[in-house]
């Protein structure tokens, strides 16, 4: 049963409104800005720029894999540098930064009805340290020896040894320093997001009236604040091993016939620290996507999200559970095999709240009024790719099934589908959805549909068949698949096909970037609320929202975020700041 809250129940303001920092010059307004919206755009632009580098790296990898021996400049060293930087950039510097630094900064204050983040100055520092982290990362391309080629997991001992590109040069050092900087910068931003959600909400905005986008970003941020310290200490310890010759992760080693001056360290310890961060990281990327896609589906199907409370608890539950599943990345790492029983069980349990989310998305479509707008198309594509990638997770999470499949192309296909393609598709949907709020103009529809179809179908054609290469036994992280007895002739053709699709999908992203830039001036005027959405960011007096977001008075919230198609209401949506009961607002109490 759904409890009925009086629609106009609004608690009084507990604290006076905070004083807003006002910029004095062009520099403080657009460059060293303390406005979360400007910081969001800075984060997004930087993440997109470095993401383009990672995209180009993936092309280079696919050139080598699809057509081995054709491109002499892609040496084995270069190949490993490409995969390492591609992976690290995509996971940390693009996805994490864009979801939390980009969408978090733009949407949290607007959606909870705040004028800005609660610590605007620290928020600004967060971006500049992130930028510094990106620059340090990029500098490793120009350092002697090039960037590290240790794989994005940076497993020691090889990460800091001569046999790995950048291991005894600058590459690994710059990578570790960059990660440390990233974590420092992120922590500043992350504390802001958490405190703003907890303390900065406007009157009437109870936690259970928050849009799921905010729930997703909020929970992901809390997780990131708990998970990143593990990576931080791992980076510091490896840096000490590399620079000062300590042996946190380094046992006695004979390298090319020479005894190294290390001893007593544990390579497995690094893996535990890395994945204690690394697994929550998957959900740090996924939860904002879950939240955003819930709002996209609800808005564009003109229907309340189905099972809001269950959706909130699923987000929180997934967030908590994701801290006790990390060693499923280590089933064949040589850790004690009995861990397998525990981690397989926890890992498969996490499938239950995840499945509930999927059901609730598709049940929101059921008896909806589905507008097949571009954001909705991306939301549908997300469900397809996420369900596909999530289900192959049931293979890899089930410890004994992981044994033949781990370290093969099956894993590559799985994690690209579930945490590459699916979240990126949500990012695209979200950009098509919120671009009109950020710029005041719509993105071009024709280019958008072209971008959608090529990206969605192309990505599916890349990663779905790739699973079967892994099933065949083709290992990942090989720069050449020639001379391998398990690979049939036709499998090599499949591999070339995957490469060609990768170039096509990559090309579509350039069309998308063009659309982003072109539409700033030439897009159709959007108005304040083109999607007829209920949440507060669409109710701002100005579009794009001005400094301070909401004009003279902050909005007061009277209802949950999902009053679409309320029976008896004049229109098919009732914004959160509209008082009165057109009909009982049957929001869950």
């Amino acid at each position, binding site marked *: *049963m759904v409890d009925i809250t009086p629609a106009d129940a609004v608690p009084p303001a507990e604290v006076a409104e905070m004083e807003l920092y006002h910029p004095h010059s062009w520099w403080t307004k657009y460059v060293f800005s303390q406005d979360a919206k400007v910081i969001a755009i800075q984060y997004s632009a930087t993440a997109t720029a470095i993401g383009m580098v990672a995209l180009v790296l993936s092309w280079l990898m696919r050139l080598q894999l699809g057509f081995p021996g054709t491109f002499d400049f892609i040496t084995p060293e270069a190949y490993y540098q490409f995969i390492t930087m591609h992976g690290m950039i995509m996971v940390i510097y693009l996805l994490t930064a864009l979801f939390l630094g980009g969408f978090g900064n733009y949407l949290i204050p607007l959606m909870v009805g705040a004028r800005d983040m609660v610590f605007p100055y620290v928020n600004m520092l967060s971006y500049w340290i992130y930028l510094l982290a990106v620059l340090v990362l990029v500098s490793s391309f120009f350092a002697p020896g090039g960037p590290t080629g240790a794989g994005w997991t940076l497993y020691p001992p090889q990460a800091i040894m001569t046999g790995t590109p950048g291991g005894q040069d600058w590459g690994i050092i710059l990578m570790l320093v960059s990660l440390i900087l990233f974590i420092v910068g992120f922590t500043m931003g992350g504390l802001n997001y958490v405190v703003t959600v907890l303390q900065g909400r406007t009157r009437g905005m109870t936690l259970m009236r928050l849009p799921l986008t905010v729930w997703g970003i909020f929970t992901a941020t809390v997780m990131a604040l708990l998970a990143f310290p593990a990576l931080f200490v791992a980076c510091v310890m490896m840096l000490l091993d590399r620079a000062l010759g300590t042996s946190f992760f380094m046992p006695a080693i004979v390298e090319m016939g020479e005894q190294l001056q290390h001893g007593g360290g544990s390579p497995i310890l690094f893996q535990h620290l890395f994945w204690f961060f690394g697994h929550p990281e998957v959900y740090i990327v996924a939860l904002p996507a879950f939240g955003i896609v819930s709002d996209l589906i609800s808005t564009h199907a003109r229907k309340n999200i189905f*099972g809001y*409370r269950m959706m909130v608890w699923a987000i929180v539950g997934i967030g908590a559970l994701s801290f006790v599943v990390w060693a499923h990345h280590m089933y064949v790492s040589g850790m004690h095999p009995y861990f397998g029983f525990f981690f*397989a069980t926890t890992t498969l349990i996490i499938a239950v709240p995840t499945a509930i989310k999927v059901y609730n998305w598709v049940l929101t*479509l059921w008896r909806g009024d589905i507008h097949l707008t571009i954001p909705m198309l991306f939301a549908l594509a997300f469900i397809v790719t996420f369900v596909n990638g999530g289900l192959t997770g049931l293979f890899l999470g089930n410890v004994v099934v992981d044994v033949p499949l781990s370290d093969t192309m099956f894993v590559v296909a799985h994690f690209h589908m579930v945490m590459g393609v699916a979240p990126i598709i949500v990012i695209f949907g979200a950009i098509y959805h919120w671009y009109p709020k950020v710029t005041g103009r719509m993105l071009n529809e024709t280019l958008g549909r072209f971008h959608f179809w090529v990206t969605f179908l192309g990505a599916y054609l890349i990663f779905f*068949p790739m699973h079967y290469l892994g099933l065949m036994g083709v290992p990942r992280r090989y720069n050449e698949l020639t001379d391998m007895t398990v690979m049939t002739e036709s499998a090599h053709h499949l591999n070339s096909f995957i490469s060609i699709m990768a170039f096509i999908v990559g090309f579509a992203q350039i069309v998308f970037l063009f659309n982003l830039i072109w539409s700033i001036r030439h897009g159709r005027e959007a108005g304040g609320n083109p999607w007829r959405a209920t949440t507060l960011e669409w109710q701002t007096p100005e579009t794009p929202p001005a400094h301070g977001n909401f004009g003279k008075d902050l909005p007061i919230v009277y209802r949950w975020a999902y009053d679409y198609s309320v029976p008896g209401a004049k229109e098919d949506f009732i914004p959160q700041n509209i008082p009165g009961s057109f009909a009982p607002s049957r929001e869950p109490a």
Partner: protein
Amino acid sequence: MAVALVLVLIVVGSVLFHFLSPWWWTPIASNWDYIDNTIIITFWITGVVFAAVVLFMAYCVFRFRHREGNQAAYEPENRRLESWLTVVTAVGVTALLVPGLFVWSRFVNVPGDATEVEVVGQQWQWSFRLPGKDGKLGTSDTRDVNAENPLGVIATDANGQDDVVVEAADLHLPVGKPVKMLLRSIDVLHDFYVPEFRAKMDMIPGSVTYFWFTPTKTGTFQVLCAELCGQGHPMMHGVVMVDTQEDYLAWLGQQQTFAQLSAPQQMGSAE
């Protein structure tokens, strides 16, 4: 309409690809068909869920697409439905997990009659050591590795003297006998992986890891390194030949023991 059709085509295409494409696992040559069976169970359960969700979505897109005058239903929650779906999912997950854990317990518990074989990985080659007549492998230490003693066998350990050392050459195994592979590395992480055997495990410098299997087919199988170990990683191939008992013994007879390898001068002068 087009969108609903594409969603249906994705399901149909994926299912057809699964059954009709020539890309499938390499024929098995060990006792781990249990693992293959678990994979098949997983394919069925996940395949049905994937098809059901995407087809349901296709139906919704077709049936509830926006047309003039449509209004969406207003239904915030449906506890009964949500509980049912949770229970059904939990049952499905259990159906995957239980056989998985059952097979895992077989995988980690080595039968008592398994013969120990040591694999030593280094950048970028495979070496092997088999117990001699005493049936025991001598202890080893990376600190003892040098040009004369490439595997770091501890010279003072009597058990190690008769160990058969196969340096950077092919490993032979007798068909039908369970073997416990003891895995060791002297430099970085490696992973001993033969796709036909299905089993694999990382090798960690400073530790000894293991897995076991029984080869069920004679033949030559390629060993791949499955853990990134530096720029020579993709070239780190090896060979396991599964022989009949007779051929295996013939091969074993030609191999040298640790004592023979480590003291060639003294041996020569004694003769």
